[in-house]
């Protein structure tokens, strides 16, 4: 009987559809039955702290480092990255222009008070958005009603943005896989500040002796291996590459 292990991942990773490609191959190569728990970043970290999963795969560097430092994870292993994109109405009401950089683009949105939807759930995406506002010298607490802090996962927030015809910061994978685009489109992309690193953290067996250490290590080995590299780099939606493998073997 195949060995199972539980892996908590963020919504963005799962929504990208990549997991559907990887899991069957993982099963084939290692015999591992990886059960995905698709949750918010914060919840994923909590599941790890409680020892309810064997490893986590998230994208929020600061929180990850604290997690490992506190001894909940053995180490942090970078696997791949994708990037965030700024979504907004096709008509581009705030008049965003590509060369200005993401910080300038956000500043312009705030200036024209164009509708903006923020996830507001302390996810990796939300934390990145906040740091970008900070860089623009702005504090969302002072924003007016054009700024909608919706407190929801990526998909729900995208639905809201689509319903409001608003701007939103999303990871590329979620966006490409999103089916309710309405009149939204990518308005801005490609700034290095939008770089989004995913990392794998096995749960520390010293804290939770029952965690499945070996399968977790096996999975890590697979994820940083050539087979994973090939699959991740080759995964595209509508011809667009979603993830870039950058693990150090």
């Amino acid at each position, binding site marked *: 009987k195949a060995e199972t292990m539980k892996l908590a991942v963020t919504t963005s990773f799962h929504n990208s559809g990549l997991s559907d490609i990887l899991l069957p191959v993982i099963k084939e190569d290692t015999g591992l039955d990886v059960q995905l728990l698709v*949750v*918010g*970043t*914060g*919840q*994923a*970290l*909590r599941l790890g702290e409680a020892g309810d999963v064997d490893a986590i795969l998230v994208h929020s560097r600061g929180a990850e480092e604290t997690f490992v430092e506190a001894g909940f994870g053995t180490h942090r292993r970078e696997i791949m990255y994708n990037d965030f994109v700024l979504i907004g109405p096709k008509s581009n009401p705030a008049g965003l222009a590509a060369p200005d950089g993401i910080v300038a683009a956000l500043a312009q949105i705030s200036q024209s008070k164009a509708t903006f939807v923020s996830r*507001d*759930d*302390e*996810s990796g995406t939300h934390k990145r958005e906040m740091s970008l506002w900070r860089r623009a010298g702005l504090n969302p607490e002072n924003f007016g*009603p054009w700024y*909608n*802090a*919706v*407190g*929801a*996962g990526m998909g*729900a927030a995208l*639905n*809201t943005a*689509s*319903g*409001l*015809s608003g701007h939103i910061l999303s990871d590329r994978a979620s966006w490409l896989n999103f089916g309710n685009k*309405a009149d939204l489109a990518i308005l801005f992309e490609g700034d290095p500040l939008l770089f989004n690193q995913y990392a794998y953290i096995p749960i520390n067996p010293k804290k939770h002796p029952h965690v499945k250490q070996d399968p977790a290590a096996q999975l890590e080995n697979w994820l940083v291996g050539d087979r994973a590299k090939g699959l991740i780099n080759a995964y595209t939606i509508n011809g667009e590459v979603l993830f870039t493998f950058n693990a150090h073997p």
Partner: protein
Amino acid sequence: MDNIWDGIKAAVYLLVTFDRDLMEITLRSLQVTLSAVAISSFVALPFGAWLAIRRFRLRRAAIAVLNALMGLPPVVVGLVVYLLLSRSGPFGVLDLLFTPAAMIIAQVIIITPLIASIAHQAIRELWAEYHDLLISMNTTSGQRIRTLIWDGRRALITAALAGFGRAIGEVGAIMIVGGNIDHATRVLTTAIALETGKGDFALALGLGFVLIFLSLLVNFATHALGRTERGKFW
């Protein structure tokens, strides 16, 4: 266990400090849910009574459908309301999406079958008792329905309270149509879902306990006003 304890502490802390945000979302929860319960009761009680007094060919089927509608998945209701109210939907011009009104609409759809079904059940018993009398007095359907609702009001309170319970704790639908927008459509349940997603379980539980406390309050108030437990056998 510690988390649950932290949750209780969080609830007490939120309550004694009269947290402004908490007040706001609590009041919004109440407002949305009470509106939904009022509207639903207005529709569902007479409908339940009507179903109890009418004999028609598809009656059994109608009752089975009504009972089945109690199982309408909130997420699906949310989706459908979202599609109807969205800009590109047929009622887009009303601009109701992501407003408390949209949340009320979704909740009304969810709890109306529940209230109607329980009301039907309660009124059926009373109708069995009153049947001969009301037929004999040559009452109109409207008079019958009004009489049954009035004389059965105690049992109907349970129906309305069941609807209240379902609505106040509901999150799937109002998350979609309300959007959980801070200071606009955030209510207790969506806030709880948010804190859960953030992994702040203590705060989530704290909000949950506030919600339960609110439920208790509404129920005790209803019982006190309705004097539901007095009378013949009590």
